[in-house]
């Protein structure tokens, strides 16, 4: 079986599990929406602050949801020792990485649509520069999902994985959070020229993390 077919098999399996269990729909999406709502309450005394802070608050909410999605992605592998089944399956470690990262990314894309609508409504944001927003969101989401997947497998076999994943992932995705926030800020300020360099940074980061994940995921799956 080819690399991409194996990745599609793993992604399909993870997405089917999420669709069936509805954890993403019933827990992760409401969680992200509540984060956005709470931050709106926290900052609403200054009506000019919310639209300016919207990009950072949006990506903070997405990051927190990423931690949950990654934890869930590897949590299902711990039940019934499915992780050992994956190791025995003969699937290539790189293709398992791509499949799991794609499944997390798909969940995050859907989440970003919901959270984006909530931010526009609650924070009174005027959407400008749609193309650059979409490109930045795409690159940042791939980077978040790939980074989360690498650290997710690293912590997957440990009892303290729920608390370890955010501790490991947050420092690693700082460039993503910074780049995505700046790109969104520039796009919303109607200055797309200032946003593209940040999008390029996000794209480079995403490619590097994906490459590292394809190489490192197999050994990490074996050793942790």
């Amino acid at each position, binding site marked *: 079986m080819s690399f991409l077919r194996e990745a599609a*098999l793993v992604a399909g399996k993870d997405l089917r*599990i999420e669709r*069936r269990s509805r954890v993403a729909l019933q827990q992760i999406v409401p969680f992200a929406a509540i984060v956005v709502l709470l931050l709106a309450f926290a900052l609403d005394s200054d009506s000019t602050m919310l639209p300016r802070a919207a990009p950072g608050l949006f990506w903070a909410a997405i990051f927190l949801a990423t931690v949950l999605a990654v934890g869930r992605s590897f949590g299902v592998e711990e039940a*019934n020792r499915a992780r*050992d*089944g994956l190791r025995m*399956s003969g*699937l290539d470690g790189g293709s398992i990485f791509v499949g799991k990262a794609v499944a997390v990314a798909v969940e995050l894309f859907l989440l970003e649509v919901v959270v984006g609508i909530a931010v526009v409504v609650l924070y009174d944001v005027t959407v400008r520069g749609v193309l650059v927003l979409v490109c930045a969101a795409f690159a940042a989401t791939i980077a978040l999902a790939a980074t989360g997947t690498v650290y997710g497998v690293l912590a997957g076999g440990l009892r303290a994985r729920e608390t370890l994943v955010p501790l490991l992932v947050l420092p690693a995705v700082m460039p993503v959070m910074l780049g995505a926030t700046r790109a969104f800020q520039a796009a919303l300020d109607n200055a797309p020229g200032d946003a593209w360099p940040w999008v390029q940074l996000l794209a480079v980061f995403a490619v590097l993390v994906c490459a590292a994940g394809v190489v490192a995921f197999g050994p990490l799956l074996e050793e942790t």
Partner: protein
Amino acid sequence: MLLAGPNGAGKTTLLRLCAGLLPLRAGTGEVLGVDLATGRKRIRRAIALVGHETFCYDDLTVLENVRFAARAAGCEPGVGEAALERVGLKRVANVAHGRLSQGQRRRLALANAIARAPRLLLLDEPHAGLDEEGRAVLEAVVAEAPQHDCTVMIASHELELARRLVTREVEIIAGQVHPLPAAAPAPRPEVRV
């Protein structure tokens, strides 16, 4: 072949070592002609392990679980369904793994294993949790294994049941393997599934 021995003797560890799930930290070992120290990942496609856990996903149905195992092993479409038929789980094909009884889960794990068409089938306490019909299914799978060019290694405490299925027996005590004298193949009872 039967692996006998007291609790903690190392039977499960040996099976997981043979399956390539544990690294060889000392000594040497070969499975299917492959050195366990250097090629344990290469042999996995040719081996199936039915252990204490099923390696299945609770939210996937029986059919989805066995199809995933078969496709991951590069098997043709339809192999998973045939494996379910063989272990008598076709009537619960659309039931989620999380809703199965213990015995049905064991049978699903067995279906996943045979769907991979392994050359070496490792069974860890295979009789545990199985009812009479399940044990008949298990005996049939083991009895037919040589026709599929498959060797079966069983670790079990239920020695009477396990000895009906094997032609060789070794005992493990504190991690040391002690071969017992080769016995004539035990007469196999007629099995109908």
